Each structure stands twice: as structure tokens, then as C-alpha cells.
């Protein structure tokens, strides 16, 4: 260690030895991070942390020591940023050179010892649990994870450490590394606490079935609690992940959906929830990527609007300074205005607010809408083809890149894999009515499909064509909103379409009326107050291309792709008529 030091004076006041002053140099024990020292021999000090072997120089502090080893009478001064020599630096008689310093790092300005600890811990390279595989066998690693379970057995304590979807078994055993108190300490750490462990990765002969990392086990040497969890958890994660059927058969606990939603933070830690939301993120990303590749432009539309777009019944009112405004039920109007503004192909991803008092498995008051609008050249089927192609790309992307997530969800909520055809199956409404009649359902030609009929139709289509995703084209005009373009060949039908996944509707779309005159007629026909939609009609007065589009609900698509039964499972913090928190 090269220690620059200076001889202060030739005799110490206390004992008459030579007083030596060390020149400050930045350094602190990388293991301990504290300024601890023990005297090795004259004028050389080393780290007194038990097993650390590095030698160091005291930090930014000049301390005078007597060469006979009398301890300084005053404590070292506070750590300073820049090395400083005391003013009383008298004649330097000699520079002492000793062994080279092993490790020597610049110290960040810290106030006290505990923060110096953080700097040292930054020298710990944390390894992800995912990377604990046999090829790391024998290595000493640091891991930060949560305690998933702990089980003490006399001289040993088995822990399962969990990090997102991955978990690994860890063992604290009484030995030369760990004492009995340490085993007891480890056993008493509450579940879900975040811990840092330093452990040796050991390969095991017998696979550990219950963990994701099946071939290795950690033998813990040191364990620190970073953040402690309260002992009584509102729900147990094993219960939250248990499938319903297993719970019934074996009589073990499962967690109610309401409890899960009330304690969403803990419920979201389960492997199933992590998988669901990673898949949902994938849906969103695939949607964006596919459309950008097709030449679409992403837009953001306002959510505070002046007039309810789809009728006044299902809209939230907000107070807007001295008047009131509404939360947008769909970005419909603004998408169309963008088309009239020559953006040609647009899409937007944003929240949609529907104040429907529907307490069903598939309705939320706030959800994420993925909306598309496109101007077409000759026929609105170009738009249908574009939308279905986007959906097929999304399904393919999920199938190819998210298999782990799909399998994880399938463990708790088993379902059939999602099937689709390429090109997408397109049926006309008339054919669908005929199929339903053949199955014994009585319905009129221009009647809308009720939910049970939609589901039955889904099953009939699945049985006949073997697909879970299809388009129903040419709906009757009477059941569609006023801005839907009527079918030029048959006035009873319209150029509108719905798309279904597993028998449930995910998209409602149509060719829009782009002629202001015709739009006014249709609005009057539906008995809508023209004053309220004046701005909307005006946007078509200055040349508007023929266009069509549609919107899907992100949560519904994820739910139906995975075959889940409640849309609240795919909404991170769901909102429905009865739930406003968390």
C-alpha cells in the first residue's frame, strides 16, 4: 500500500514516538464501506472488517498517529469531498511507502456512515433469479428478491426467494458461515419482505419441482432485510394463484375476486397477474407496431369534450370551471376529424369512459380503447381487411413470443388455445341469422343479436369453421348509430361490421357517412338534436374522403384471447359502477 505520509514532529506528546500524519487519499473498504481500522503494524492500518483482506487508507481525513501506536485522542473528522491537508503541515521529513493499495475508489460525498454503506453495496452486483442456472454453479452471488415462503427445521431454514415470475430455493444451515441465531433470524423474516442475500449457487441432483429454477439451490452466507413486510398479509399469494377447481377438490383456500381487487398491489405480484399484464403490454405494442408498419399515424384525442358523442345517457359529467363538460365515450369524432384533416390513416390508444350501470363480467366504466380510422379508395372492405390483418398479426405475435405467459395463465385458468383463420372469416349478417334459425333460435331479419345469441353464434361458427375470431358484415341499418353509412344496394342494411372473439363482441365499426347532407338526414331520422352535433357535421363540409374504422377494448381482447371470464382480471385497477379504489 502506498501511503503518503508526513512526519509531523519527531516526538509524540504522549509517548515520545514519531507523530505521523497520513496524507488523505480516497479510499474505503469496499466490503465494509466503513472506516474501521485495526493496527497491523507500525504505520500501516488495515480494514478491521472480519474477513476482508484489503488494506486501505483513511478517507479524506488526516489523522495524526503516534508511531508507537497510541490511538488518536480525537475521533477522525467528518469525511470531506476533496482531500485536504491540515494547515498545520509542517516539514515533511519522509514519504513512507508501503504495500500497494488493493482497491481504491473515489468516495461520493456522503453525510454519514450509513450512506457510505450504500456506495459499497453498489459494488454488489445483483444477479437476477432468472439467471441462476447450473452454469453459475459454485459462484458466490448477490441476489435481491422477496421471501415467498420460509420453513425452519432445527438447524436449517429453507426459503423460497421470488422475483416476478421466477423463484429459487435457498438454504440457511448452521455451519461455519451461519450461526444458529442467523438461522433463527432468517426463519423469522416475514413473508414478502425484500432481502439481499449473498449465497453460493449449488447445483442439485434432484430437480426442485416447486420452483422455476429447478436445477440450482442457493446456500446463503449473508442475508440482509431491505424492506420488511408486515406479518399479517391480507391475502396469501399461494391462495391467490390456486385454480378454483383445485381449491374445491382439495378443500384449500382460494381468494375471492373482490379481495384480490381490494389488495391489488399484492395480487399483482402473483405469477398469473404478472403474465396477464405482460401479455397485455404485448398486445398494445403489437397493435402499435403493426399499424405503424402499415403507415398509420398515432394521434391523441381530447378526453374532455363539450358534447356527448353517442347520446347523453352513458356519459360522465365533470365540472369545467363555470360550466360542465363530459368525459369522452370514444374518440370517434376526433378520429374522423383527423381523416378530414388529411391524415389518411390514424389510430389512437387512450382511455374511454362509459357511464353504463352494467355490472357484468365484461363491462368497465373506464377502459383502454384501441381505435382505428382509415380513408379507403374503392370499398370499405379495404378497411375491414386492414383491421383483421392487424388483429391476426397481434394474435400471431402473442402466439410466437408470449407462450410462457400464456402457459402461466393457463395453469390457474385453463382454456382452449385461441384459434383464428388466415384470411379472417367474414360472414354476412343474413348468413348468421340463418345459422341461428337452423339451431332453433327464432329471430327477425332486422333484429339485433342478443348476448346469448352472440355466444351461441360463436359456438356454431367454431363448430363449423373452427375459428374463435370472425367478422360479421352488413348489419341491419336500424340497429346502428346515425353516422353509419347505409348499404347502397339494400336500404335495410348498412356498411357496418362487428368482430367477435370466442363469441363475444370486441369491435364495432362501420363506414361513416362523410357527406354533410346525408349525415343531417340520418341524424334527423334518429331524432337527434342537430344543435348538439353541429361541430361534428361541420367537419364534413369542406371535403371529406370516404372512410371507415372501428375500436377495440384492450382489456376485452386480452381477456378473450386468454379465455378468462372476467374483464376485471385484465384491468390493472378496474373501474366499474361499484369500484373506485384502488
Amino acid at each position, binding site marked *: 500500500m502506498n501511503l503518503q505520509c508526513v512526519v509531523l514532529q519527531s516526538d509524540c506528546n504522549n509517548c515520545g514516538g514519531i507523530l505521523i500524519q497520513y496524507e488523505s487519499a480516497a479510499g474505503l473498504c469496499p466490503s465494509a464501506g466503513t472506516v474501521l481500522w485495526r493496527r497491523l503494524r507500525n504505520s500501516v492500518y488495515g480494514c478491521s472488517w472480519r474477513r476482508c483482506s484489503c488494506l486501505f487508507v483513511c478517507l479524506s481525513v488526516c489523522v495524526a498517529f503516534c508511531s508507537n501506536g497510541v490511538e488518536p485522542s480525537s475521533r477522525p473528522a467528518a469525511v470531506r469531498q476533496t482531500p485536504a491537508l491540515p494547515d498545520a503541515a509542517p516539514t515533511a521529513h519522509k514519504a513512507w511507502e508501503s504495500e500497494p493499495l488493493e482497491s481504491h475508489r473515489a468516495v461520493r460525498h456522503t453525510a454519514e456512515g450509513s450512506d457510505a454503506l450504500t456506495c459499497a453495496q453498489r459494488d454488489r452486483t445483483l444477479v437476477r433469479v432468472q439467471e441462476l442456472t447450473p452454469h453459475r454453479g459454485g459462484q458466490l452471488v448477490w441476489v435481491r428478491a422477496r421471501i415467498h415462503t420460509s420453513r425452519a427445521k432445527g438447524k436449517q431454514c429453507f426459503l423460497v426467494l421470488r422475483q416476478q415470475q421466477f423463484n429459487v430455493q435457498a438454504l440457511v444451515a448452521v455451519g461455519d458461515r451461519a450461526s444458529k441465531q442467523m438461522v433463527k433470524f432468517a426463519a423469522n423474516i416475514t413473508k414478502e419482505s425484500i432481502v439481499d442475500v449473498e449465497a453460493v449457487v449449488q447445483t442439485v441432483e434432484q430437480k426442485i419441482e416447486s420452483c422455476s429454477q429447478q436445477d440450482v439451490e442457493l446456500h446463503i452466507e449473508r442475508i440482509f432485510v431491505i424492506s420488511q413486510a408486515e406479518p399479517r398479509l391480507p391475502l396469501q399469494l399461494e391462495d391467490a394463484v390456486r385454480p378454483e377447481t383445485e381449491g374445491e377438490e382439495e378443500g384449500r383456500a382460494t381468494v375471492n375476486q373482490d379481495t384480490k381487487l381490494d389488495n391489488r398491489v399484492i395480487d399483482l405480484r402473483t405469477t398469473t397477474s404478472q403474465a396477464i399484464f405482460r401479455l397485455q403490454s404485448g398486445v398494445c405494442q403489437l397493435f402499435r407496431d403493426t399499424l405503424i408498419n402499415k403507415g398509420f399515424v398515432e394521434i391523441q384525442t381530447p378526453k374532455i369534450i363539450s358534447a356527448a358523442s353517442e347520446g347523453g345517457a352513458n356519459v360522465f359529467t365533470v365540472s369545467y370551471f363555470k360550466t360542465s363538460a363530459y368525459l369522452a365515450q370514444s374518440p370517434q369524432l376526433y378520429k374522423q376529424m383527423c381523416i378530414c384533416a388529411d391524415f389518411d390513416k390514424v389510430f389512437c390508444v387512450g382511455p374511454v369512459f362509459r357511464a353504463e350501470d352494467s355490472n357484468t363480467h365484461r363491462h368497465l366504466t373506464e377502459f383502454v380503447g384501441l381505435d382505428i380510422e382509415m380513408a379507403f379508395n374503392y370499398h370499405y372492405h379495404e378497411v375491414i381487411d386492414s383491421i383483421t390483418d392487424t388483429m391476426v398479426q397481434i394474435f400471431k405475435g402473442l402466439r410466437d413470443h408470449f407462450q410462457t405467459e400464456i402457459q402461466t395463465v393457463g395453469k390457474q385458468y385453463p382454456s382452449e388455445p385461441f384459434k383464428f383463420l388466415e384470411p379472417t372469416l367474414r360472414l354476412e349478417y343474413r348468413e348468421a341469422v340463418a345459422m341461428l334459425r337452423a*339451431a332453433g333460435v327464432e329471430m327477425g331479419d332486422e333484429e339485433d343479436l342478443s348476448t346469448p345469441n352472440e355466444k351461441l353464434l360463436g359456438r356454431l361458427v367454431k363448430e363449423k369453421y373452427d375459428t374463435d375470431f370472425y367478422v360479421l358484415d352488413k348489419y341491419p341499418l336500424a340497429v346502428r348509430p346515425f353516422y353509419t353509412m347505409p348499404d347502397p344496394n339494400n336500404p335495410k342494411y348498412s356498411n357496418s361490421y362487428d368482430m367477435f372473439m370466442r363469441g363475444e363482441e370486441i369491435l364495432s365499426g362501420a363506414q361513416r357517412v362523410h357527406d354533410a347532407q346525408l349525415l343531417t338526414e340520418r341524424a334527423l331520422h334518429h331524432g337527434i338534436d342537430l344543435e348538439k352535433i353541429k361541430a361534428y357535421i361541420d367537419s364534413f363540409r369542406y371535403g371529406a374522403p370516404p372512410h371507415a374504422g372501428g375500436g377495440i377494448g384492450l382489456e376485452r381482447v386480452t381477456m378473450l384471447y386468454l379465455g378468462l371470464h372476467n374483464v376485471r382480471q385484465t384491468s390493472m385497477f378496474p373501474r366499474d359502477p361499484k369500484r373506485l379504489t384502488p
Partner: protein
Amino acid sequence: MALKELSSLEKCLGLKKPNKYSTQGERKVPVLQNNNGPALVGLVTIASHLVHEAKRTELLGNSAEQRAVVQQWLEYRITRLDNCSKEEVKVILKELNQYLEDKVYLAGNSFTLADTLMYYGIHHIIMNLAVQEKEKFLNVTRWFDHIQHYPGVRHHLAPVVVLRNRVYPSGQH
């Protein structure tokens, strides 16, 4: 209701001359006034009489055992099926489903009066079942479809559509 059944039965049996029935009591039990002998009261009684008249006694069963089973089902029709409540419907369908698991006809191996009268009695229930429920009680649906297509049986009743393939795979709800 019962009168329509009896007239259908007559056509089914090939009786040329339709009889005049009257009803008795608040439950509208059919009564057949005969020239010789006391009045016949009750659906099953009259039905059996008609079968004898048409000389189609095989419809009441060939062997003693079959005859007994036919009588059992005729009684079942009157006592359990007629005027049953909604909860009982599920129980009846479940019982029938279990019974019909390994049988083509209700009694023995041939078509009998029991099949006809049970078909008339259960028709209004089956007509209102959803496709999924029809698949749940698969044996009842199979038997029902078989009987309703039997020549001459279905007169005054609407045909119930039964899909050829299973639309709901087993185990799914």
C-alpha cells in the same frame, strides 16, 4: 291440452272415427262417454282404451315386464310430469337422462304408448331449453329427436331443432 293429445293419438293409431271427449273437474281431466259401460276418466285410461280399440296392443308392451314398465311411465307422466314446477323440471330431466343412457325406447326395445305420451308431456319443456342445456341432457335430447321423427307421432306439436354436432365441447359451461 289433453284433448289435443288424444285426438293426435287417435290419428296416430289410425282410428277413423274421432271420439267426442268432455272434461271433468278443474284439472280438465278428459272423459270419454261410452255407449256400453261406465265413462272412462283420465288420460291414461282413455289412451289405453284407444289402443285396444285400434287393435294395436303391442303398443302397451309384449311381455309382462314390458307392460309393467309401460304402466310405470304412463303413471310417471301423470303424477310427476304434468304441472311440475321449475325446480322439479331439472330433477326430472336429470332422472330421464340417467335412465335413457343405455336405452333407445322408454320401455323395452320397441316403440310403446309410454314413448308417445311422455313425448307429448315433455315437449313444452324441451322446446324452451337452450342449446347448451340440450347438450347437457344429451340422452333425453337423443330420445326426443328419435320419437318426434317417428312416423305419425308428431301432429299438433312444433318440431324441436336438434343440432347434429355438439357445439359445446364436454366440460365447458
